């Protein structure tokens, strides 16, 4: 089976001479749930953003769903991004817009510029958005403003947005960091179901190691921009954790 994500010798530096990623090699199969762990500044967020081309890496290659992200022109990059959903620690929803409108943002890549800028979406897209909301347990809240929702509900809206996108890969940047213990589990279960039922590949940067061990099928440890651990969750013992989270190695960028 071809890789969902194939990263070869990926390097990136926001400032010359201060590398954040230093030669990352990573191959992820479709349907895998990969937890990305490491200290703040280890390069987790940058790695995720190289996958969907929000950050253009300084070296190496990143092939996603069979396309080399770095060599795509912006228009093709946008077409590829439709197939890669992303959810965030701060939710990054449009607080003043309704829940449904936020999910419809997942359809922007499929809608012509002028109608979408006038907030006009097809009836099929609206039905799809409502259906996605029902699947994440938010039926009935379509017309609520996002700012009136709880943190857990907001993250569900973000997940519904990636579903409306028809995403084959979902990148999650600390998506459970701002949630309480029970809600973290709810969100991880939702993502796990998404992966199982729709074969969505998940790449999740996480700080919560027990949560990562419970839900991920594979754990990647990133230290100072390099992968130092790559194994099944069972192999993540105290020694491995101590090595990945070795503070002496923090480069202070990320």
């Amino acid at each position, binding site marked *: 089976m071809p890789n969902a994500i194939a990263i070869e010798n990926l390097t990136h530096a926001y400032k010359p001479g201060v590398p954040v990623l230093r030669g990352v090699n990573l191959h992820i199969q479709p349907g895998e749930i990969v937890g990305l762990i490491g200290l703040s500044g280890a390069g987790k967020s940058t790695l995720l*953003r190289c996958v969907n081309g*929000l950050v253009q890496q300084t070296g190496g290659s990143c092939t996603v769903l069979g396309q080399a992200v770095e060599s795509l022109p912006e228009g093709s990059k946008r077409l590829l991004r439709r197939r890669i959903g992303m959810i965030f620690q701060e939710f990054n929803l*449009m607080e003043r817009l309704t829940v449904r409108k936020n999910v419809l*943002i997942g359809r*922007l*890549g499929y809608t012509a510029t002028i109608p*979408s800028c006038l907030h006009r979406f097809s009836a099929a897209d609206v039905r799809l958005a409502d259906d996605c909301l029902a699947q994440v347990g938010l039926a009935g809240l379509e017309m609520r403003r996002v700012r009136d929702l709880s943190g857990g509900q907001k993250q569900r809206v973000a997940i519904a*947005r990636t579903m409306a996108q028809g995403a084959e890969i979902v990148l999650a940047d600390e998506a459970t960091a701002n949630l309480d213990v029970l809600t973290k589990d709810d969100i991880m279960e939702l993502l796990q179901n998404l992966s199982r039922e729709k074969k969505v590949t998940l790449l999740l940067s996480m700080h919560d190691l027990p949560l990562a061990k419970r839900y991920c099928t594979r754990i990647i440890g990133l230290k100072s921009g390099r992968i130092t651990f790559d194994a099944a969750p069972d192999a993540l013992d105290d020694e491995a954790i101590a090595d990945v989270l070795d503070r002496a190695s923090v480069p202070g960028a990320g």
Partner: protein
Amino acid sequence: MLNRILSFLFGAALLVFVVWCFLAIGTQVHLTKYGLHHGGDYFAKLFPRSQADWRYALKLGPDLWQPLIETVQMAVVGTVAGMLLAFPVSFIAARTGSVPGPVIAVVKTFLNMARAVPTLIYALLVIPLAGLGAQTGAIAIGIATFISLAKLYAEALESVSVGPIEAVRSAGGNAPQVFVYAMLPQVFPLYLSTTLYSLEYNLRDSFVVGIVGAGGLGQKLSNAVNLFEWLDAGVIIALVIVLVNIVDYFSYRVRKVFS
């Protein structure tokens, strides 16, 4: 230690400067005494003191209706024209990463320098070009509004958080979609409140520029004072106070709805 000495010297210099200002103005105290003596009389004349005065004041109403509308029109036209010009310019004055730094620096420097010029001065500069009347007032207000709103809109754009922009881009959104879905919802309340504040100020300004001949109630007030028609002046000032407060109230309500 050096910092402390510098702070002390700066504080002392500031104190000397303030005392110097007071002393300079204080030497003109005879003017204040004169003013208190005669000014009281003038002030009293602004108000109706008899039934005949009240009847006269009420009769003034229809004559002032047209200038009052003109004052509002100047403020509205100036605000809307300034807003429409400021909107596109704010994009080349904002540090959002899409415009080269030197361009931003030039536009910002121009806006900062032009902002130092009060609306009244623009009115005086426009009079030779457009003549006396409401058009001049509207142009002057439009220029001042454009300059202040361009800067404020640019600051609003700079304060936009990048999270929602990343979210829309990561969903495959293009630049116009990023603007409409990620930026506009963030800047709209700021745009609206700064524009409404600007309308409130412009209403006062349209009164003031009228005094130098740009039409409206300001011009009527100027005429009344020059002809010593104190009661007329009083009625005009009362109208302005009522008008400004009505607009302030509605502006406040609208801002509250969208905050």
